[in-house]
């Protein structure tokens, strides 16, 4: 367990249970947390990762084909998202950023809901209470405070669920993320800060945001932290389970730095060749999270052709459903712009809506969709 009495050198240690070559590495502290993960469970994690990578590829294709306006790929971060996402209980609540499509998948999101925002059909994709996950947050870092406040509510309710917030390496520079740690520590709120350090914030390398490893930040707020190989799904599962357990049993917040890599562009609008080296990408490709688990499965005879074919088929089927959901999404109606600004009537807005309806009527088109 991470502690405030460690030196930074111990804090910097990267928890790893599967090596890049796919070998199982033992770790006395964390092995117990995944003792129940048998072959079938490993296969399931493998399938999850393959599926979300397939979702990512399909969405990227949909963007290239003009069906989506934008897409933020998670390519390379599958282990961090599946390992942590699969550790959660249904009554835990996730507050994420925009790149956590893999986590949303773990929460059981409807596939079409993943795309609504990026197709421009909605400001957010789903009802947060339906899957206990807030919709993606665009304002960097803001969601970490929401998670902390939610966790304060869990405490007051006397419940044992946990709020989990996801954010990037860049986000650690924001005041909000640091204030969230102040509040979380002060109230000992059951919240997990899950930082996916994917080395880049758009074009800015992590060293611009953090002069020392990010995992060192939290202990200064009185929050234990752990640094995990973010491309190792088993290690991510283990550290998240440990943190969840601590939170459920009154131990307060934990900070997890998952060291990973954004293998794709920041979004489909970005061109990473402008600011980073091809070599770097190659280095990280050698640590690929899916290849690594495949290696382990293979060495244990858990990835025969019928299994990998079935996984591929599942992924293809998911991708087909995703595409279908995308292109058959109903167009919003013009007057939807006025809906849900308030929960109660608002005279200013009613007047504007009224006038705009009259305006549309003057064209004979009040029920028309986007122009």
């Amino acid at each position: 367990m991470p502690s405030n009495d460690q030196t930074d050198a111990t804090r910097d240690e990267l928890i790893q249970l599967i090596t890049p070559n796919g070998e199982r590495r033992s770790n006395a502290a964390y092995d117990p947390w995944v003792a129940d993960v048998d072959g079938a469970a490993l296969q399931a994690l493998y399938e999850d990762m393959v599926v979300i990578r397939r979702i990512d590829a399909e969405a990227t294709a949909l963007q290239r084909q003009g069906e989506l306006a934008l897409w933020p790929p998670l390519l390379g971060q599958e282990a961090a998202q599946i390992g942590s996402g699969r550790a959660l209980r249904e009554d835990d609540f996730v507050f994420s950023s925009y790149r956590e499509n893999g986590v949303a998948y773990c929460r059981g999101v409807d596939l079409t809901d993943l795309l609504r925002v990026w197709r421009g059909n909605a400001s957010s994709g789903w009802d947060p209470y339906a899957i206990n996950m807030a919709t993606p947050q665009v304002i960097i870092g803001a969601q970490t405070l929401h998670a902390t406040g939610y966790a304060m509510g869990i405490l007051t309710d006397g419940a044992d669920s946990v709020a989990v917030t996801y954010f990037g390496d860049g986000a650690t520079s924001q005041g909000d993320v640091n204030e969230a740690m102040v509040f979380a520590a002060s109230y000992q709120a059951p919240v997990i800060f899950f930082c996916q350090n994917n080395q880049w914030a758009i074009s800015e390398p992590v060293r611009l945001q953090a002069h020392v490893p990010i995992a060192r930040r939290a202990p200064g707020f009185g929050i234990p932290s752990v640094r995990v190989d973010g491309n190792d799904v088993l290690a991510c599962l283990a550290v998240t389970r440990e943190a969840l357990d601590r939170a459920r049993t009154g131990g307060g917040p934990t900070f997890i730095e998952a060291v990973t890599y954004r293998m794709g562009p920041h979004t489909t609008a970005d061109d990473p060749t402008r600011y980073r080296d091809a070599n770097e990408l190659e280095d990280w490709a050698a640590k690929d999270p899916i290849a690594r688990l495949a290696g382990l499965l293979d060495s244990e005879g858990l990835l025969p052709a019928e299994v990998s074919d079935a996984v591929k088929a599942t992924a293809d089927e998911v991708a087909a459903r995703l595409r279908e959901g995308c292109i058959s999404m109903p167009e919003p109606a013009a007057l939807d712009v006025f809906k849900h600004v308030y929960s109660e009537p608002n005279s200013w807005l009613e007047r504007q809506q009224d006038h705009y309806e009259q305006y549309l009527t003057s064209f004979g088109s009040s029920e028309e969709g986007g122009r």
Partner: protein
Amino acid sequence: MSTMTFGRAINAGLRRAMDNDPKVVLMGEDIGKLGGVFRITDGLQKDFGPHRVLDTPLAESGIMGTAVGLAYRGYRPVVEIQFDGFIYPAFDQIVCQVAKLHYRTKGAVKVPLTIRVPFGGGIGSPEHHSESPEAYFTHTSGLRVVSVSNPQDAYVMIQQAIASDDPVLYFEPKRRYHVKGEVDESVDLSSTSMNDARVVTEGSDVTLVTYGPLVPTARDAAIAASDDGISIEVIDLRSLAPIDFGTVEKSVRKTGRLVITHEAAQSGGLGAEIAASITERCFYHLEHAPVRVTGFDIPYPYSKVEFHHLPDLDRILDGVDRALGRPNSLSPHNGLEG
């Protein structure tokens, strides 16, 4: 009916809201043991416990952001911002989260947050303690904004604000905290709406629109003017977003003249919206352009000169004279030398 100070009336309203709904929690700096720097939450932590009345770390964005999280969890947080000038670190959370979350989620997530802001000047304080930032929020779609001017409204409207499923900024005129008034605590909350403006005094010559701290000043102006035979109708807006333009319009159709007064800077202040909207709605009834009597376009000044910045009875009456086309400070030859 009991007589209580403005501050005490808010306290009583908070207490009532907390009694009625266990999901109401108060958050802010120094609001617990100290009862807030203005003592508005006096005794509430003692009676409801530290889980219902939270002293928070010194970070306004943190307070607002965690309040949003509590709202996600089904709570109705009431946040105290210690002074008007300290709301800006929370601006991002207010504008991007509090105001937009309901719209963003197509109504799935409600943010029934109340943000209490002691505001306005006249208390002799240094910088950042006397501001009137309401126009930033009235321009922010998704928020409701109210301001109260007397103990009865303070008592009722704090409860209505808390009961509202929309986020509400509740502006308290801090220089009136010690003013006493009658409060009927048995009033039925649903018998009035915080969205409605109130005609404070009826009149036929000029409509004088204001809110919060300047309502008593406006009423005094009406009394003073009546000695000169001028009949002023004073309207207390109460709700600043949305504004009950129906009530103002009705009055201006009668008087044909409109004066607006507020402490905030003139340019882009609420007076501009009121002047523009009323001109749109009753252009042909107006006999003079709406007149604004406001603070200047300056940062809030140091206290020895703050009463130049703040509209007072004389400046309001000068504005009334302007609206009526009577001799006023802007008429030619106004001065002694003139």
